[in-house]
């Protein structure tokens, strides 16, 4: 069965530090990849997505992610975090070309940014 692994469950950073959150998936075929963010008390919002083309994807709020097919990875990065980035981040995968757009989510990484 397909699965998504997020290695870091909790990350604590100071403002201006760089961020990298790991995401690996298990699926042998072509995939579409997503990162969602959930701010405290809010619903999930799409940060960025990858379907095809340039494996370096830029999203909102200065986030980017790199798809490395050989490593089955889609890590999220941000050069300099802000206190307002405190949230939970979810990686999600969808096998391309079908499946009724059902997403498989990772367990999430809770990020706390201290001033």
């Amino acid at each position: 069965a397909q699965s998504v692994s997020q290695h870091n469950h909790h990350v604590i950073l100071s403002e201006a530090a760089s961020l990298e959150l790991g995401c690996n998936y298990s699926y042998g075929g072509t995939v579409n990849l997503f990162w969602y963010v959930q701010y405290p008390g809010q619903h999930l919002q799409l940060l960025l997505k990858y379907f095809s083309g340039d494996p370096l994807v830029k999203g909102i709020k200065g986030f980017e992610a790199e798809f490395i097919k050989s490593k089955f990875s889609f890590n999220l990065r941000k050069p300099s975090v802000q206190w307002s980035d405190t949230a939970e981040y979810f990686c999600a995968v969808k096998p391309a070309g079908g499946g009724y757009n059902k997403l498989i989510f990772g367990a999430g990484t809770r990020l706390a940014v201290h001033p």
Partner: protein
Amino acid sequence: NAGVTQTPKFRILKIGQSMTLQCTQDMNHNYMYWYRQDPGMGLKLIYYSVGAGITDKGEVPNGYNVSRSTTEDFPLRLELAAPSQTSVYFCASSPVGEATRQNYGYTFGSGTRLTVV
């Protein structure tokens, strides 16, 4: 500015009680989903629907039922509430297929926090 609307936002149920979580979307999305979110577990798919009158089980359907009589509405029914159903429930919708990849992505509701005691 509606998107996906879920009601109620909070609910406390006693063991054995029943309730319906409401979900409505106004984006004319064919696909709709119910997920539950538990700490450290991410989101698990309960049921999904690909259009009015068509529903199917997801990863964790036991104890739940759904219906889809219209494109807009996708209610989730708990018949006999159990403590294991304490969770946060999210409804989501998406447009059909990758032809809409420019705007593809789930739109989530704000969630229902359910406690079963």
